[in-house]
């Protein structure tokens, strides 16, 4: 944790706190609208699909698939030491999409990374309160 040298997200105590609380326990917490039963990401106080404010948090599977990716050959700050590394948009098993830096891939060979590959979430402790989500390719 002390050596986490990358930007650390700043949890919003009014809306997104349940996600960050779950992250501390290694759980992926997602928001779901109880009116239309659809998951949305990022967290909101209003469902972007049906505009209901009836939103609950639930523990998701932590599984998903690569929707698309890129390899960052240029970066700054703590990320500069990691280049080349892959970033990706992840299709969540429960619906909607998250952004991440990929683990378990060879970024030196971009075409070896496959859209559709299965990924699982993991969390890295960045500070006392913040655990940053990452996704790892599992097949």
């Amino acid at each position, binding site marked *: 944790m002390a050596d986490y040298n990358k930007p650390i997200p700043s949890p919003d105590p009014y809306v997104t706190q349940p996600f960050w609380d779950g992250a501390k326990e290694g759980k992926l917490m997602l928001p779901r609208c109880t009116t239309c039963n659809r998951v949305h990401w990022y967290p909101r106080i209003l469902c972007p699909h049906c505009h209901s404010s009836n939103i609950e948090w639930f523990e998701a599977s932590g599984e998903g698939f690569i929707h698309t990716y890129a390899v960052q050959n240029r970066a700054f700050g703590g990320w500069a030491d990691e280049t080349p590394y892959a*970033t990706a948009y992840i299709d969540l098993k429960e619906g909607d999409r998250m952004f991440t830096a990929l683990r378990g891939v060879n970024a030196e060979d971009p075409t070896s990374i496959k859209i559709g590959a299965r990924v699982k979430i993991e969390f890295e402790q960045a500070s006392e309160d913040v655990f940053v989500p990452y996704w790892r390719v599992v097949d």
Partner: protein
Amino acid sequence: MPSNPSMSAAIVAAAESDKIGYIEEGTTALNLHIEAIRNVCAEAGVSPSEIDGVFSTNNSNLLAEYLGIHPKYIDTTAVGGCSFQMHVHHAMAAINAGIIDLAVVSHGEAGYSSRKNQGKGTLGGGGGDPWLPAAQFGGGPYGAWGPPSYYAHALTRHMHQYGSTKEDFANIAVVTREWAGLNPRAVMHSKETNPRGGPITVEDVLESRMIVWPLNILDICLVTDHGGAVLISSAEKARSFKTSPVWIAGAGESQSHADMLEMDDFTATSAHASSQAAYRMAGMGPGDMEMAMIYDSFTVTAGITAEMLGLTARGEGPSLWADGNASPGGKLPVNTNGGGLSFSHSGMYGMMLLVEAYRQLSGTAEDGVHGIEGKQTNAQSAVVNGTGGLLSVTGTLVLTSDV
């Protein structure tokens, strides 16, 4: 029913700041704005005091104060590089509503000089809000540092979904450089204008420095200093200037998302919706367009947008540039100034699209541009598209001329 605003207003002049590109002695965004406004007024033969509407991405109030004018309409729409297409749309609507007669749309951005001036002179605001959704869950925590970090994901998805290749997109940069070769004001016109200027090949693009795979540096726009301004007049007064009118036949705008986190389809943008609105207003279609100015922040931006504008089939955007069709002398001239890739791109490129479309359609392109006197294409119609943010927001204009 409100009337169709098509042709209710015209762009009557377009100009740039005194210098554009890599201005080695340095400049500020404010100076670039004011030079462009002074120059566009001189070109049209009007005084800044005749302007009653001010449109810019920020600081429209400061521009009016600086000029000592008291506008009746002040618009600061700032949603990225497409904002200027939208300003034209908004100015036309305000003119059509009878609120104003003469608007200025202005742009000044010290994309190059701000680096040596440690960020000063940008007219920029403060830092971002760390509680914004995109700050918590977007690219920042993962080292994404700017548009290239994000746009690359769209190109990967396009290649996966449609079987397109890096070579297909690289050819867009090659063709765009051909146009720059005809424009002495283009940063990459030749070895005389820049050590890296002059013609390039597909191989040059593929072998250039990798920035964010699959985007090499020659897939990515320049970052320059640039000021530009256009004047927009009511139809009634449009022929009273020293310059000739280019008519706003159609205009439209739309957005699919703000942060790329919410981009549903990485191979499509709202340029489909905004161009459909513009074509509908104009009573014209993509087949009626005789030239196209397509936002090329990246080769992938231009390629996808060609599809959205209806100029190619889905998945085949880069084919617009194939076989010389979009080259000088080709069937459909595209990005005749040399584009954001090779002409100039200060960060928000939409104004450069407007200035070039005006010059081509009005026949008032200055002598020497493209090495040919006056008009370099025979186009009397153009589709002009801006893309802003992270493939987020788009504005499309259909412009026509009768000269």
